[in-house]
């Protein structure tokens, strides 16, 4: 499997996810969107697996390859949120966001070859990146919730339920961010001799982590404002964007050891 077939798999998956989103609005049962969405995920998963086999390494090295995982995990996060909390709108939003990343990958693929530099050849590589991508998808989904909340404003009913949903997603998200970050630290010790060097990528990972810690602790007080909580979520997600790809454009990143072309 090569990138040439990406367009068929990804458009096929997008079609399935789109149909699933519509069916969530039309049908009363959750099983129908669940089945169609899952079919889309399997189709997309097959492409990732095929690419992994043909590259003879996990497809996690380039930006394009991580976008691949992101496009996969977003609809998954949306589906889980829908199944657990009943919000239908999260489905089309996550599908749309996933579509954006798929289109970027179709129009602007990176150069992909088999070479994997020695420092990346580690058992930590796959779990570290995959868990980060999963957390990014989850936190992306909760950012959609935050924007939705702020846009709808006072018109929303049952705000407590939305806040509990956001809390749940952030707890799962920050748990994964923490796991990803610490696996990164253990790996760095093995590969570069030190677990934490305040390299720009690491610094922004810490900033992101602190951003979500602020949310968690702020929410512990019953009197905290919902609006402020949602704004914290949006700021934290901006920090996450800088950590993910924004650092590559910062002056400080010239010294980073974590940028791979």
């Amino acid at each position: 499997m090569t990138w040439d077939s990406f367009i068929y798999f990804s458009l096929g998956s997008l079609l399935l996810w789109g149909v699933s989103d519509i069916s969530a609005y039309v049908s009363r049962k959750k099983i129908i969107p669940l089945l169609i969405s899952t079919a889309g995920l399997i189709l997309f998963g097959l492409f990732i697996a095929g690419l992994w086999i043909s590259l003879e390494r996990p497809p996690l090295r380039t930006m394009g390859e991580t976008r691949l995982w992101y496009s996969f995990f977003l609809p998954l996060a949306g589906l889980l949120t829908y199944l657990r909390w009943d919000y239908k709108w999260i489905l089309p939003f996550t599908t749309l966001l996933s579509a954006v990343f798929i289109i970027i990958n179709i129009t602007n693929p990176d150069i992909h070859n088999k070479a994997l530099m020695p420092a990346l050849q580690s058992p930590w590589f796959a779990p570290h990146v995959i868990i980060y991508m999963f957390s990014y998808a989850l936190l992306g989904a909760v950012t959609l919730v935050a924007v939705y909340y702020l846009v709808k404003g006072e018109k929303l009913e049952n705000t407590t339920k939305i806040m509990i949903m956001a809390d749940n997603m952030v707890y799962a998200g920050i748990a994964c961010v923490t796991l990803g970050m610490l696996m990164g630290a253990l790996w760095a010790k093995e590969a570069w001799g030190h677990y934490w060097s305040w390299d720009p990528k690491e610094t922004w990972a810490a900033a992101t982590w602190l951003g979500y810690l602020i949310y968690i602790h702020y929410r512990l007080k019953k009197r905290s404002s919902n609006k402020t909580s949602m704004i914290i979520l949006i700021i934290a997600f901006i920090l996450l964007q800088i950590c993910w790809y924004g650092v590559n454009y910062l002056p400080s990143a010239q010294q980073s050891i974590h940028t791979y072309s």
Partner: protein
Amino acid sequence: MNNSSRKVWESPWGYPEGFIVATGVVLAGILLQLTSGKLNPDLYAYPVNIIIGALFVIGLLTIHFIYKKSRIVRWLSTVYSTLPAIALLLVLCIKLGLIPQLPVTADESQLPFDLFSYLGWYQMTTSWPFVLTCFYLLIILGFTTLRRTGRKQSWRDIGFYLNHLGLFIALLGGILGSADLERLTMTVSEGNVEWRGTTHRGDVVEMPLAIQLDSFIIEEYEPKLVLIDTQTGRILPDTRPESYMYEGIGKKTQLAGIYLEITDYLPHAAVFRDSIHSNIVPMQMEGAATALKVKATYESTAQPVEGWISNGSYIFPHSTLQVDENRSLAMPPQEVKRYSSHVTLYTDEGNTEKAVIEVNKPLSVNNWMIYQYSYDDSKGKYSDTSVFELVYDPWLKFIYIGIAMLLAGAIYLFVAGPKTDNLIEEKIVEERQSQS
């Protein structure tokens, strides 16, 4: 924030006091920075760091047990002091992430002559505001954890202790341990024994161990072909450079609009070049180059060109194949797949050990870790020299304990989720009822 009629400094303290105290911490840090310059890690190297650590922990415990009813100590274990403190660290992290940093070891003469230098912003992690903020957070973390032990314990507390105590241990250990961290490089050539390391300052010191390099091996990926602009040397197409990795003789492919057929492959070749021709012959010897024979067709030229392409070596020149006036096929240096050193290790105690050291597979001896660091670039895969990095970090155990607790705490958070208060459940029921 909780009772708006309250004035600042009137108890109970809330967020405003939190922000004021956090600002005070930064101001104190700036003052120290301006008066005494950056923090020099050598000042708190062993045994000073152990003493500081012990005093800090004993101090927290003592204050907790004597003054736990005091308003300030109580406030120091609430979200009201926590949030501004985390926010402050976040601001410092953002600055750290934006401003290019200089090595901690760079001294004043190497820093630019500007305000940022005075404030320590080019060496943020050893600047006083940064270190004081970390300690302020540690104080809050410590009191929060201690206060929690005074409550009736439940299952939820396990997650709390794992996260907060774990972070306390990792953070304190990381800060104090940074003074004892040593990193040296050692360059050894095949067949020789080396026991001297070079510090980052360039000083040569004798090590408690010696390394004998028995052999050094580099494995490379298959060679790649690229199409380059002969004038500029840039890889084409300009917008998205393409490359083709060798997959076998007889393979056909398309590279940046050129049709290619691989007609021959020599993993060990000698390249001879006179003014017009390159002549390539098989040759098994040290310094041999990799070469590919390629037939290239460009749509408008009816006649395909065929010839050898090689990336050369430290002995032989590289060789390209001209496709048309402006474009040539070339072979960039092969990417390294693996490099490893087979070594015999001798320690002070008289132990001998044979081992293989490679990237991501360091060797651990006593408190030292030995890393495969580099090799002789100029000779590429024929390098007979290996460079090791030796890292000494006696505090690593603490860090690993802290990290292990944080990992368990994260799994706990994932599984348990947020605290769902009865109060919140009631609120939902109320809202539901008011809707129907």
